[in-house]
């Protein structure tokens, strides 16, 4: 029941928020916040129920769908619950149709939950596409200058990827004669698998996004409202990595084996390329957007190793990126709200004028560059270790990427937080209280996972081991 509630509660909340939106601006916000909080509590409850079950799997089904919560989805469901709250807080001061805005946010959350909880392929795809609609409206309705183009580009680009995925899913379902997600009982013809893997995987790789299928991301991020960016980077991108592990690889393990080197190369390319591109940016939000490309490169790299360590790396990297990118977008959004610009060159010296914001931004940058002790590091470490086992010295390229990661993050700090304060910001106020609380929660998460990554791995371990065993690989 909890699993159904995870999908239905935000939907109901969306409806209420939408209705409440017709009676003033405060009510929909409260509805949004309460629903998001309830969703977070539900996620935690579901997790507790899962842990209490004997095989660490929670199932629920109707005649039309099956929902599953296991180690692979649990961290992401929790993450979604958390990021949902942050997104609501981040959009607290939206004065333009707040009811609809919050309704869309909650609907988006429900859709993402559907993806992570889906136990059958049809439902998985339904959620996958359903995500696009609220996101399309969030970008287009509350975005910035170029939102019209960005909204459509986001939709079309990812949609093209997902219809190819649908073609793959159709083939898989046709062969396996079941829509339930899991290792297929009827193995798929090895000759089919190579192209089947890419067919299914392409939609996920676009979503991740992997180099060179990434260019929708910066456009979407730059134009999206803060809450949209937070959801997009925080949870939507995770659908890609999750889909690869949950669907693409189990259905076409041989195809994956053949594709693994290419995937690994794409992951590494993303790490270096994303960092390099982030370094080249003059727009702070675009910089953060490109950093996602780099971070998600570690996810792809980890998955590409096909080992349980690599999977663990991917899970950790996804959770971490969810927290870190949400924090960064929250901060950038908060800054934009007060300055109405994202132009890095116009900033400088904000650390002195807005110490709270500055401190948080420095923290976020350090987390983003993978500082040990913070959440980014365990994932990157495992990805490097697992990658070294799988790809050998090629991994030194990742090391270059890690270096570049420090370059763009620190140069952002130098250009925004350090230095002399520009005249125009001499009266700038510091980050709002609500945003501070949201940021503090994220920071807390980042530290906790950085200090005790085993909390996540203990959840994922059984599921990952099972998945990798099906691949025929060891640890």
């Amino acid at each position, binding site marked *: 029941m909890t699993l159904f509630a995870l999908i239905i509660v935000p939907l109901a909340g969306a409806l209420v928020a939408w209705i409440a939106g017709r009676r003033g601006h405060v009510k929909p916000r409260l509805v949004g916040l309460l629903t998001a909080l309830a969703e977070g509590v539900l996620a935690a409850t579901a997790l507790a129920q899962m842990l209490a079950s004997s095989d660490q799997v929670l199932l629920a089904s*109707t*005649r*039309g*769908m099956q929902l599953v919560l296991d180690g692979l989805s649990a961290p992401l469901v929790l993450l979604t619950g958390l990021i949902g709250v942050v997104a609501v807080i981040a959009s607290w001061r939206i004065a333009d149709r707040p009811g609809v805005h919050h309704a869309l946010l909650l609907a988006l959350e429900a859709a993402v939950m559907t993806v992570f909880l889906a136990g059958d392929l*049809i*439902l998985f*795809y*339904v*959620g*996958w*596409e*359903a995500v*696009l*609609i609220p996101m*399309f*409206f969030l970008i*287009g*309705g509350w975005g910035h200058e170029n*939102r*019209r183009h960005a*909204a*459509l580009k986001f*939709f*079309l680009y990812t*949609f*093209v990827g*997902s*219809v*190819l995925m*649908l*073609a793959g899913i*159709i*083939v898989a*379902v*046709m062969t396996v004669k079941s829509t339930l997600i899991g290792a297929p009982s009827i193995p798929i013809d090895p000759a089919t698998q190579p192209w089947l893997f890419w067919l299914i995987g392409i939609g996920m790789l676009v979503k991740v996004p992997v180099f060179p299928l990434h260019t929708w991301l910066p456009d979407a991020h730059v134009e999206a409202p803060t809450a949209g960016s937070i959801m997009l980077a925080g949870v939507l991108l995770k659908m890609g990595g999750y889909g690869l592990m949950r669907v693409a690889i189990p259905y076409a393990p041989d195809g994956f084996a053949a594709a693994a080197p290419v995937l690994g190369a794409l992951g590494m390319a993303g790490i270096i390329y994303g960092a390099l591109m982030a370094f080249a940016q003059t727009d702070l939000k675009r910089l953060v957007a490109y950093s996602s490309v780099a971070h998600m490169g570690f996810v792809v790299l980890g998955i590409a190793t096909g080992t349980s360590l690599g999977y663990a790396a991917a899970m950790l990297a996804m959770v971490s990126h969810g927290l870190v990118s949400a924090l960064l977008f929250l901060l950038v959004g908060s800054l934009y709200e007060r300055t109405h610009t994202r132009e890095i060159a116009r900033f400088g010296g904000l650390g002195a004028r807005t110490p709270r914001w500055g401190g948080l931004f420095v923290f976020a940058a350090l987390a983003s560059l993978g500082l040990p002790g913070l959440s980014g590091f365990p994932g990157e470490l495992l990805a490097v270790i697992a990658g070294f086992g799988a790809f050998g010295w090629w991994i030194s390229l990742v090391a270059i990427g890690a270096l570049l990661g420090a370059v763009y993050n620190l140069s952002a700090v130098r250009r925004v937080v350090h230095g002399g304060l520009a005249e125009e910001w001499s009266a700038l106020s510091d980050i709002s209280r609500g945003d501070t609380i949201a940021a503090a929660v994220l920071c807390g998460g980042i530290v906790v996972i950085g200090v005790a990554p085993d909390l996540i791995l203990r959840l994922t371990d059984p599921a990952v081991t099972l998945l990798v065993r099906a691949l025929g690989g060891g640890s």
Partner: protein
Amino acid sequence: MSFDQIMEFLRPVLSIGWLPAAIACAAAVAGLVADMFAAEKTGVAIVSAGLAAAALLSFATALLPMGPAGTLIATTFGVVLTGGTFAGLAAVVYFTAFLSCGGGLSSGRAGSRAAVAALVAIGAAAGQVLLGAADVIILFVSLELLALVAYALVASAGSDRADEAAARYFVQGSVATGLAVLGIAVIVGLGAGTSGYVDLGTTLAAMPPGASLLGGMLLVSALAFKVGAFPFHSWVPDAYETAPAGAAAFLSASAKAAAIGGFTLLFVRLMTVQAFASAGLAVSIIAAASIIFGNLAALRQTSVGRMLGYSAIAQAGYALVGVCVSPLGGDSVSAVFLFAATYAVGAATAFVVLEYFASREPQWDGSIAGVAGFATRHPAASVALTIALLSMTGIPLTVGFWGKFFVFYGAAQGGLLWLVIIGLVGSAISFGYYGRVVRSMFFDAPSSRDEVGAPQVGDAPARGSVWPSVLGAAVVIITGVAPLIWGLSLVYALFAFR
């Protein structure tokens, strides 16, 4: 009484296959009479009521617990299949016709609305017959009746552009009719007057393969024209753009769904004959060409109606994807029927919203850019249009997804993965133009504020009501979500081919 008992009780009534068609025709006549003696509005309302009754009746028939494989009604020349399998799609034909008229046909010319409604009702009846035709002659007659209704509907707009489109449609249609008559001449003539589907297989097999193939493909081409597939498509954008939106709703939904159904059933028969072995390939190429052409050409359109016209060509292509594997039997035929139904509901809703827009925004020129800001002024209709367009794109949670999913699933099973991929990518592209409408409605500010709400002088169109749009959108969503809750088998239940 349980549901089953009620249905058993009603069975004698529900089994009368021609009853919905008769009701529709009667309503058409009653509507015309009412138009003469009472208000035009009353006439339209009477026709709408008749269509609603016909739709409900067909729907109830479709729900009949597994009856005989359709009731065979003897006619002068052969048989018409009704009930069972076809009732589901027939219900959709009537329902979309009902949606078309339900809004009062407000965007049509004053004075002609009741006549248009009557035409729609007659057309819907013809559609039901076309759908259930089990005889080449019946097929031909209903096809022609539908065609004549269509010409008249396009012309009913009363504008120069509509006249022109109707004339061109007519000329093209006549050529297609010529092809159909030639086909009948060959098939029925050489077949010693046998026109029933039951014997069609044996008759054709006995003929020289070349002759049977020629006759069959002539008929197929005539049907492809009615469906609006490439390269028989040219009339579609013109007609959809210039016809009154309510009439266009009928053309794009009821007429097309019926044509697809008729096409499928004829094709399934033809494919039993050895000589037609390669016809499947031809249809799949037509399908691919329609998808590619329709989707690409729609991208450049500036008028919403015309864009929907081009998109309808692509949608015909998706239907044909299902048609070319329909000879696989059972589920494949159901898939095409399902697709036709889902598309029809979506298209009807879209055009009904356009009609509503046209009636409420006299300044609107029908362009995509012109709908800017409608979302704030007409939220319900805008949301309805969005839902309809998403459904036609094939996005999940709308019924359009299920239609496409099953059609493509069937095609994949038939080994046509290349066609599946073309179709799916085409679906993705389609949001490139559907999305532009949504974007314009929701994200763009109206270009000039002062025109808005300017009092209209003279021939004011009736103020259309929004409920048909909402109803259509609700059906799209409810039927789109329901299978997730009650299972996929629900999807098939109405359209099971048995």
